[in-house]
């Protein structure tokens, strides 16, 4: 173990959330819960990034009172990346939900294992 685990507690929680989301995506057989797990996983990464951009004692990167000093503001790059990422994750989850609706219409269940069992039973 390195020295910084308790200083980096925010990142540690982000990693924990990433693990939970990953597990949900891998283990839950219910599709809706899989999608929630996916969202949790994504937001965990964004939390990690936001924590990395934060600098103690500085304010959000919006120029006020003409102060343009590096010492005054936090790092703007992670915020920009997360902004991009949030939009990507909402479009991915909308697509997954649409797929879920179609799958439900066809097989009348949300359980992915059940669906593949039905498919195999049909002998396709």
């Amino acid at each position: 173990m390195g020295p910084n685990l308790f200083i980096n507690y925010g990142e540690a929680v982000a990693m924990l959330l990433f693990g939970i989301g990953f597990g949900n995506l891998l283990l839950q057989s219910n599709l809706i819960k899989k999608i929630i797990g996916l969202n949790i996983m994504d937001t965990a990464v964004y939390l990690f990034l936001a924590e990395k951009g934060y600098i103690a004692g500085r304010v959000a990167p919006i120029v006020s009172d003409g102060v343009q000093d590096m010492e005054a503001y936090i790092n703007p790059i992670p915020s920009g990346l997360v902004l991009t990422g949030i939009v990507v994750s909402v479009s991915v989850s909308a697509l997954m939900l649409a797929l879920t609706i179609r799958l439900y219409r066809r097989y009348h269940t949300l359980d992915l294992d059940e669906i593949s069992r039905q498919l195999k039973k049909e002998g396709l």
Partner: protein
Amino acid sequence: MTIFQSILLGFLVVCAISVSFSRNLLNSILIYMSYSLIMSILWVCLESPDLAITEAAVGAGVTSILFFATLKKIQAIRIESEKAETTAAKNNDAAAQGRQESEAKDRKAEPAHE
């Protein structure tokens, strides 16, 4: 501020775990909504208001609405009286007949509560 952030982080973990173990889909989506809101508060604490606005509008708002619309489409949101029957039907899920019956019921009931 640190204590406040720690409490929020704790909430996040609790929400994430309870999403995984909640039985009702509607509950898990509500929990996910609160997860998103907590996340956006946390981002305000981390001095990123841009993210907080976007997450509150997109993550907690539109994504959750899409989840609800999906639940409505797949008939997971039911009116209370029907709930008991359908959970009973769910329990013996292997019996395909019962499932079909409940579906037929859902279809009949659908225009009424849509």
